[in-house]
């Protein structure tokens, strides 16, 4: 029964979370309260952890909830459940788009979508700047990496690696808030 519940709950998150990023959070908190597969504290911890582990936080939480309640099989079921709605919805939309690609309304819709998509991505970036407690050194690194990236774009690993190392070193010497 637990397997079925895990599947239903995380499938629900996959269907109803709209807008990405932390859109899954309200649903994940709701699950914590109703089912006690994990606590709200563990969810908050996962939010932080998911910034240095691969994958979106919703997927991480599904894997964690499944694993702590019912081991490997549970974690596979919960992880699949949160992704499955995406798979179904994207497949349908992608087929429809191929069919109506020449349609003027679809063309117009995609033009609007792309501009809005770019704006939403910008908004996430701007929000992150103001909520990340960058302090002086963090702001300097941000500017340095941005300018270097605008001149010559490097592999994403370069930016992630340098900034992780920077955090480790600057944090070690207690310079973050300096």
């Amino acid at each position, binding site marked *: 029964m637990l397997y079925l519940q895990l599947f239903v709950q995380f499938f629900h998150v996959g269907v109803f979370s709209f807008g990405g990023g932390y859109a899954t959070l309200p649903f994940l908190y709701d699950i914590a309260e109703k089912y006690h597969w994990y606590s709200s504290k563990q969810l908050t911890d996962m939010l932080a*952890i998911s910034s*240095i582990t*691969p994958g979106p936080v919703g997927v991480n939480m599904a894997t964690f909830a499944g694993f702590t309640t019912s081991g490997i099989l549970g974690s596979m079921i919960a992880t699949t459940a949160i992704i499955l709605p*995406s798979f179904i919805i*994207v497949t349908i939309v992608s087929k429809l788009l191929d069919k109506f690609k020449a349609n003027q309304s679809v063309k117009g819709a995609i033009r609007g979508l*792309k501009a809005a998509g*770019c704006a*939403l991505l910008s908004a996430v970036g701007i929000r992150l700047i103001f909520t990340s407690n960058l302090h002086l050194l963090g702001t300097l690194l941000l500017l340095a990496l941005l300018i270097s990236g605008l001149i010559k774009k490097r592999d994403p690993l370069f930016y992630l690696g340098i900034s992780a190392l920077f955090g*480790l070193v600057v944090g070690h010497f207690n310079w973050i808030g300096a």
Partner: protein
Amino acid sequence: MEKSIYTIFKTFFKVGTLLLGGGYVILPLLTSELVEKKKWITSDELCEYYAIGASLPGIIAANTAIFTGRKLLGTAGAIAAIVGMILPAFLAIVLLASILAELIAKPSVQHIFWGVGIGVIVLLFLAVKEMWSKSVVDKFSLAIYIGSLILALYGKVSLSLIIIGAVIAGIINQKLEVK
């Protein structure tokens, strides 16, 4: 490189491994791997898949991966892409589940969180620049961009409403232009 189930899986496994910071960086990672290195798709196509993926329900990184995988090699490509992208996340959490609480308490781990956060912002803005050049190309798209950005930052409306508004405006604008 040849497009096969295996090469798609391998490419998305790499993207999944670097998907730090909660999934936001899917667009810069896919741009680096699929557009710049493998040249499987164009930057314009990828922006389109991302924009559509972001406007559908579900996790945006997953939607984008499935969409892109489908375009590369149909349903098999979509499965290879999503399994490849999710597998590193899955393995990491299964391995870390038991020490999660201790891990988060370590100062050095907190410092890495802080640092990686900066790298994520850099990647986001480099992706914005790339997406801007493909999506904000005329007065109409500039107006949509500015309107959506203001609403997303200061408006009390849900993101899905912004997307729906942009779609409706796009359809009306196209009708007017064609006439």
